[in-house]
């Protein structure tokens, strides 16, 4: 296992070094070298994962005395396959995509270094190695986003990314300091074992896990573009498309990984996971709303990633840690595909804008039949009942005790809303055969839900084989049953009434009262300006620089 682990980390490093030294000799063939080593990295990580799946116990590999540990466990082996797989795809895509760009060799050197940093990050077995890799990912991303060294614009947004990542690095460094001081070791397995065994130390009058968990969550928020730390994400489209794909498919997911890595800390916390849930929820909603208001496909994808990251963090907040890992993998695959295909979509949009035409226009001018309508109340009932039944049945078949987990119930709500939205979209679609479309949609929804449930259950057993830890995570994320039941009742009522109102309003042709229309316009104005968060940050940074300049003048530059 050690040999595969060394190969996995060493090959991309060797690729970067060889690319740097042989760039003049190899010319464009530097890409082929990089791809070959990238393929080797992927094979090594798959070999590691297969050993883990074969039941080999977790192990550590020491590269130095006190730090430089690689932790080879189910989480690191799974994440290594994801990282090396996405990296390999990006390498293959970039070979031709970047062919006309200046700094071709530099790009592949940076890409290899980034792959190595990510692999070290996911397999770090001690706090220093984790900090080094965590920090380097931000620095390397800065230069990858600024691949076009003649473009100050690309660097302006790369700068925002760097600064946000640094904001996220520092809480992790503080958490590392606190953990080292409390347990006298940098090794993560030793810290987790000591934490599980003994009474918890106090910091600032609070239990150590509470403080450390909060700091780690902050780091995860910055890395995974949670609300107020998200502004870098949609604006880094000036970088090359392969970098966007790598960033959205791999790097931005690191927050979910970090929370999973520190699961033994979060088990000991009281309220931290509730805050994590709240932050994820706010981010998921705001990211999705902002996505809908974008006119630029890549920016819309950027905000979509923000929404997805919110959902991933929210999953951690409800204790569904392994589900977050599955989510980040699934998101990585589909978002990477979307980014790499974004150019084709833009080309297609130039031929057909895809804007739906008014119903009256299609009926009178195009002489196409008006869409079929069903009674709104019947459709509202179907919308609410069908997804709920599918979700509950599926979860019941996979694991009957899921109702005891509050987190699972919370996620069912989101599945319910998603399914309902899908049916509503079908209801609004213009089709001559509504029954066929409806059946197809229902079958695909069922397949997705069954697949999602089965796979997430399998992930749970693979990543957290210890049932006590699994239960501990769910317990740490839970709230008092009375409050939970009350919330479930309230949210159910809101959803049911909301959908009834939506169908009713749709039946009335979308006409609303004046004050509601005014409110809608103001809301649209706010989201089309991205809630002014970017403007606020820009203003603050300009004021800070102006203040520093005045201070320098006053102190005569010394």
């Amino acid at each position, binding site marked *: 296992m050690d040999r595969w682990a060394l190969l996995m980390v060493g090959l991309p490093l060797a690729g970067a070094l060889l690319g740097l030294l042989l760039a003049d000799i190899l010319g464009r063939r530097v890409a082929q070298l990089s791809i070959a080593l990238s393929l080797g990295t992927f094979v090594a990580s798959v070999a590691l994962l297969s050993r883990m799946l074969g039941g080999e116990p977790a192990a550590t590999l020491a590269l130095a005395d006190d730090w430089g540990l690689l932790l080879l466990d189910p989480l690191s082996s799974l994440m290594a396959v994801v990282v090396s797989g996405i990296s390999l795809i990006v390498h293959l895509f970039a070979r031709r995509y970047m062919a006309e760009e200046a700094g071709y060799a530099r790009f592949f050197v940076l890409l290899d270094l980034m792959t190595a940093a990510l692999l070290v990050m996911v397999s770090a077995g001690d706090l220093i190695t984790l900090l080094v890799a965590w920090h380097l990912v931000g620095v390397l991303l800065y230069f990858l986003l600024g691949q076009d060294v003649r473009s100050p614009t690309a660097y302006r947004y790369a700068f925002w990314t760097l600064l946000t990542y640094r904001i996220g690095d520092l809480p992790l460094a503080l958490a590392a300091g606190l953990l080292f*001081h409390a347990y006298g070791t940098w090794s993560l397995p030793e810290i987790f074992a000591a934490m599980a065994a003994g009474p918890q130390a106090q910091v600032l009058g609070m239990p150590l896990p509470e403080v450390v968990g909060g700091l780690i969550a902050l780091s995860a928020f910055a890395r995974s573009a949670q609300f107020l730390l998200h502004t870098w994400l949609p604006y880094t489209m000036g970088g090359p498309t392969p970098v966007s794909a790598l960033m959205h498919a791999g790097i931005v997911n690191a927050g979910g990984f970090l929370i999973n890595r520190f699961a033994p800390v979060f088990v000991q916390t009281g309220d931290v996971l509730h805050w994590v849930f709240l932050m994820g929820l706010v981010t998921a909603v705001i990211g999705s709303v902002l996505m809908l208001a974008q006119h630029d496909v890549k920016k819309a994808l950027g905000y979509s990633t923000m929404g997805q990251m919110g959902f991933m963090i929210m999953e951690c907040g409800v204790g569904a840690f392994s589900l977050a890992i599955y989510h980040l993998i699934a998101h990585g695959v589909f978002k990477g595909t979307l980014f790499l295909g974004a150019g084709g979509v833009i080309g297609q949009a130039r031929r057909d804008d895809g804007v739906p035409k008014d119903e009256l226009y299609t009926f009178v001018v195009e002489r196409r039949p008006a869409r079929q309508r069903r009674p709104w109340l019947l459709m509202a009932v179907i919308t609410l009942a069908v997804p709920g039944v599918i979700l509950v049945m599926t979860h019941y078949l996979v694991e009957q005790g899921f109702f005891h987990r509050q987190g699972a119930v919370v996620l069912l709500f989101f599945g319910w809303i998603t399914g309902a939205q899908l049916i509503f979209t079908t209801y609004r679609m213009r089709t001559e055969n509504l029954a066929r479309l409806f059946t197809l949609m229902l079958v695909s929804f069922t397949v997705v839900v069954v697949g999602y449930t089965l796979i997430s259950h399998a992930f749970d057993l693979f990543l957290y084989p210890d049932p006590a830890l699994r239960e501990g995570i769910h317990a740490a994320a839970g709230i008092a049953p009375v409050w939970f039941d009350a919330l479930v009742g309230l949210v159910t009522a809101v959803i049911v009434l909301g959908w009834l109102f939506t169908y009713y309003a749709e039946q009335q042709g979308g006409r609303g009262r004046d004050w509601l229309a005014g409110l809608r316009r103001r809301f649209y104005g706010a989201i089309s300006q991205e809630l002014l968060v970017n403007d606020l940050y820009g203003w603050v940074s300009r004021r800070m620089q102006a203040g520093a300049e005045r201070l*320098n003048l006053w102190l005569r530059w010394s």
Partner: protein
Amino acid sequence: MSLGMQMLGGLFLPLFPLSLVLNRGLARLRHPYQRALLIILWPQLGVLLVTRADAPVPAWLAAWALATALLYAYRAIALRDLGLWIAFLATSAWALLWLSDSSPGLRHLEALGLSAPLVLLTLLGGGLEALVGAVSTWTGLGLASTAPRYAAVLVLGVLASIATPLSPGFITLAATLADQAPGAPALAVGVALVWLLWSWSGARLIQGLVVGPGGRDRIADLSLPMAWVYGLAVAGLGLAGISLAGALL
């Protein structure tokens, strides 16, 4: 006596306003070798004085040192001149040595580790200044396009100066955070803020000097042997960081 020694140390591990002496001195020295020598020796004298005092650093002095580090890190975000940036970063970095809990020998190494990348930048900046007159972001050098070897070494030097892994500065700051976080969390947060401001100013400097289309005149790039020398020096900084990690962490 020990307090007097510590206050004298405040001149060399600069505490504002004593830090003005160092910065005016660096501004007066025009030759890069003289500046490099000062950057190497100045904090060593400070560490010598502070360790000779053989007394714990009082809380008010630690707070003063942190305030100085924050002041110069903040002021550095508005700088456009490489020489000034080096002086401000040196002031900010050396002030943080007051917060180190390391043994005297290690503290000398920490000071050296913080100075070394700044020396490298001073020498590189001297060479560039001889070519273009002023190494300032006003001049729109666009080094990545006009002189890529200079750009590469400059970027690596700036990264090492702002305590990017695995530079010695990174290990020093990580150790300082680990020392201060449990007992003095406010100081630890302050150190983290200094670190953040360094990154801000460093990234602005890189963008100002390296990015952009560059001027019409070509700059004679760093020769290949010199690029190798600087490259090996940067690699040496990385190795020094790794060995310092073994001692400090």
